[in-house]
Structures are given as C-alpha cells and as structure tokens.
C-alpha cells in the first residue's frame, strides 16, 4: 500500500474507530498518591504481569530472580527437571529472608543462607536444621516456597498475584493472543538490556513509547529522520487497533532516510555503503519469514518503521524491520518507575555486523537518555500543573485507550468486569 501526503492531512479517525470519546483526560492518575495505591491494588495485584522470556531459563534446573516492583516482591522463577516453569515468592517461610541471592543460575535445590532451610526447585521444603526443636505448628509439607500463579504464552512467562486468578492468562490476553499468534521472535535468546529508574509516573513513561508525535522534537538528532518525512512531517501513526485492554499501533517510516553524511562511522560498518536504518538491529536475511507475519507491518506499506503491541498494563512488544524489542514500566511510587528495555538480536556472524550492533547499542542508549531527561521534565510539569488535564490528538490514541483501561480496572469490582 502506497501512502501520500493526503493520508496525513486533516484530522485522523483512529480515536473514533477505537470507540473513544475525544474529551480531555485528567492528569490526576499521573500524580496522585491515592491513585497509585488504587492502581497497585486493582491493576497490579489482579492483572497477569509479564516477567521473563523462557529463553532466560535455557535448560533443566535453570533459575532466575526478578523484582515485582509495585509490591517489592522478589520472585524466584525455576525450570525443573521436567521442564516445568514456576514462579515463587523468593522469601523463606521460616522468618522471611531472601532465599536465592543470585540473579540467575542453575540449581535443583536452594538453601536460605540464614538458617539453611533447604528447598527443591518445585518449592518443596526438604530440610530444616534442628527440626526437632520446632513445635507442632511446623508442618514441612505446608512450609514450601509460596507459589505465584504462573502461565506461559508463546515463550512469554506471566505471573498473577491473586491466590486464585479470576481469569486465565489466555482469557486475559484475549484478542492480542490471536493477533500475535505464531510470531517469530528473532534472537529471543540474546537481548541487549538497558535499565533505568525514571523520575516519572509509570504511565507517563509508557505513554512516551506509544506515540511518535514527540519523535521529530525530542529525538531530532538520533532517530527523528527515521520516523518523519516530507509526506508525514509530524510522524502520524499509519495504523492503530484496539485489542481488548491491549492495543497495537504502527509508526511511519521515512523512505527518504539515508545515513547522515556526517555519519562516517555508520558508513564504515556498511561495507557496500548501503544505507541502514538506525532502529534495525538484525540482518534482513534472517527476517524473511518474520516479515510475513500479518502483525508485522500490518498495512504492508514501505512507509513503515515499527509496530508497538502494548500488553496491558505495563509491557510493550515492538516489532521493526530487524526484529523485536520490549519495554516494561514498573510503578515504584506515583512519580518514579523502573524501566527496562530489551533489544533482541542474533549474535553477529561477521565483525562488521558486530560493529554496527555496537553503534546501534550506543545510539539507543542516547535515545533512552533523551527519554529519561524528557520524562523528568514531564513529571515536574504534571505535578506543578494548573491545568489538571491533558489534550490528546488522534495519533495519541493509544495513550487515551491505555489510560481508559487502567481507569476501568480501578473502578471494576472484579477482573471479569474490567475485561468485559
């Protein structure tokens, strides 16, 4: 599908097609302590939350430890000898100490360092030193590591903090599960990972990654020319679609993009002098089948840079010409969040390819820094704002849809009602 200047003129219709009203939205959810408490309880304590890729547990008896920031829960995730993946509270049932202090490794059993209570990787309590000096209230069969409900979807590991999740992961994912079904995740075993603590509400941070309206301004020096061009100077979206509480949008790509003539280093890595796209991290030869997936460049246009698939509440799976990347935003308080971005890429086969990866890693680090800096100012503005509302334009439809679903969850007595 070819696109012209006309496609980006006049007011767009995404918001209408999402079935959303076009009124302003309140900024209170971005700055209120009370709302943060409500959101933790009604959203993060009830939704299925993405934790890790299964490739992070590559073999039998692999384990990893992750942090569930909203409640400061340390989560131990194990793969047992039969291959089953299960999450546990990484906290000793004896007196609460952290059991596993490493971030990742291989082990079939774990001992709490404090008093050497020992567990297997199915969570069962195996041994208690000086057991006979305890009282009858200690029953080893009920003193295993406390399980956290765990479920898998195409290699993505999710957890749910409810003792008995009200809906299955499948029900929770709903239409996005079908939309992304069969996706080929290139380089899923080899992420390049940046983390940062952002001094901004988690939604303000997530919002910065679901609109491209800001790119020509904030990222002018780094990726501005990838996402905007003559026919679409304001980097409007090329498609958008609601998927239950989740959604997908696609961003414009500038076909005029060529390596900046000042970028001598980028040209060095591209042996034949071909122009690269600074946002693509893998080689196209690996990507032929991946690019055929209907969710990758759904409009089938050459004016495409990336798709953003946003899984409620805090996880994005982005697909671009070279592969995929993920963003995750964890609330720490009403004005601070933990951010993690993972760029998945195959190991380089040749050194020039490795060099271009290093250039990519260096540049995306600068993009993260630009966002970190901008979000600091955004949050200060939100908190000092006399205008307690935000105006969202049509290409910011994902922000409107995302916020409306967070609000709906906070107002719903049950998860089924929130998903209805």
């Amino acid at each position, binding site marked *: 599908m070819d696109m012209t200047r006309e496609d980006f003129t006049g007011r767009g219709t995404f918001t209408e097609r999402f079935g959303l009203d076009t009124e302003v939205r309140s900024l209170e959810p971005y700055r209120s302590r009370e709302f943060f408490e409500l959101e933790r309880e009604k959203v993060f304590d009830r939704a299925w939350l993405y934790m890790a890729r299964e490739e992070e547990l590559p073999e039998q008896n692999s384990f990893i430890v992750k942090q569930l920031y909203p409640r400061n829960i340390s989560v131990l995730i194990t793969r047992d000898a039969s291959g089953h993946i299960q999450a546990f509270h990484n906290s000793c049932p004896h007196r609460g100490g952290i059991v596993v202090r490493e971030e990742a490794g291989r082990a079939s059993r774990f001992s709490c360092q404090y008093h050497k209570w020992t567990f297997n990787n199915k969570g069962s309590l195996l041994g208690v030193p000086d057991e006979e000096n305890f009282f009858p209230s200690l029953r080893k069969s009920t003193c295993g590591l406390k399980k956290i409900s765990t479920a898998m979807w195409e290699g993505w590991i999710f957890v749910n903090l409810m003792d008995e999740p009200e809906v299955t992961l499948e029900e929770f994912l709903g239409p996005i599960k079908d939309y992304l079904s069969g996706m080929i995740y290139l380089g899923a075993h080899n992420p390049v*990972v940046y983390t*940062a603590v952002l001094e901004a509400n988690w939604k303000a941070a997530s919002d910065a990654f679901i609109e491209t309206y800001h790119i020509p301004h904030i990222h002018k020096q780094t990726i501005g020319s990838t996402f905007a061009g003559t026919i679409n100077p304001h980097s409007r979206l090329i498609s958008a679609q609601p998927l239950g509480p989740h959604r997908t949008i696609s961003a414009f790509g500038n076909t005029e993009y060529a390596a900046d003539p000042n970028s001598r*280093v980028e040209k060095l890595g591209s042996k034949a002098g071909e122009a690269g796209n600074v946002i693509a991290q893998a080689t196209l030869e690996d990507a032929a089948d991946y690019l055929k997936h209907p969710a990758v460049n759904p409009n089938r246009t050459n004016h495409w840079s990336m798709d953003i698939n946003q899984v409620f509440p805090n996880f994005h799976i982005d697909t671009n010409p070279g592969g995929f990347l993920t963003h995750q935003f964890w609330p720490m308080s009403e004005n601070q969040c933990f951010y993690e971005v993972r760029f998945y*890429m195959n190991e380089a*086969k*040749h050194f020039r390819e490795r060099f271009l990866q*290093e250039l990519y*890693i*260096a540049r995306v680090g600068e993009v993260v820094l630009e966002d*970190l800096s901008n979000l600091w100012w955004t949050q200060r503005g939100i908190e000092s704002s006399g205008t307690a509302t935000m105006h969202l334009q049509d290409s910011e439809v994902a922000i409107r849809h995302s916020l409306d679903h967070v609000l709906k969850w906070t107002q719903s007595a049950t998860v089924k009602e929130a998903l209805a």
Partner: protein
Amino acid sequence: MSGHSSPVQQGLPSGFEALEPFMAQWCCETSAERMEVRCEADMGEIRSFYDSMIERADEAFDLIERYPIGEMPDDVARLAKLLLGLAQASVAVEIHGQPRAPDTPYPNSIKLIRSTAPFG
C-alpha cells in the same frame, strides 16, 4: 583520563602500533565500559581517538575479518575492541559535538546490564 581498569594491555598487530597510545583508555572488554569511557572523557581525547581510528578503520576491518569472529588472535582481538570504541566515540563527535547529550544528567540511572558477544 583512564577511568576503567582494562586487563588487556599488550600490543596491536603489526602496522597498527601508532594506535597503541589509545589502548589504555579505549580498549575495553564490554559495551558498558566503552559508554562510560566516552561519557567521562573530554572532547579533545575523544576527537583525537576518533580521528586516528577512523583513518585506519578500513584496514583494521580487513585484518579482523580474516579471522572467524570467535577465533581472533589476541592482538587482533585488541584491535577489534579498540574499533568498537569508535562506535561510542562517534556518538560524541557525530551526534552531540560534545562528550554527552546536551541538557542531560550525568551520572544518571541508566545501566547497560547486558550486551552482545563478542566483547559486549
């Protein structure tokens, strides 16, 4: 400055000796160290490394690519690591015109916690 402790300090392949003075600063084991070196260097140091390195880069690539990526002799691997430093140096020279992005905090909370092999 030489703000990191790189364990690699021996020579480069024959013909590249003129780049050896840059090794103490720019021959790093990991991507995160390269980023830190660029952020903490002054612009004179970065430009001097960039200018010298870019001039020899094509020859360096040709030599490095004679070996499979995982099987470089040590001196060639050191040259490869030095060349990766050029990617970070280019951020200062080609994008910002200064070591770090204007109007951004340093130090900051951004951490590159995992990169890609080799020399990541």
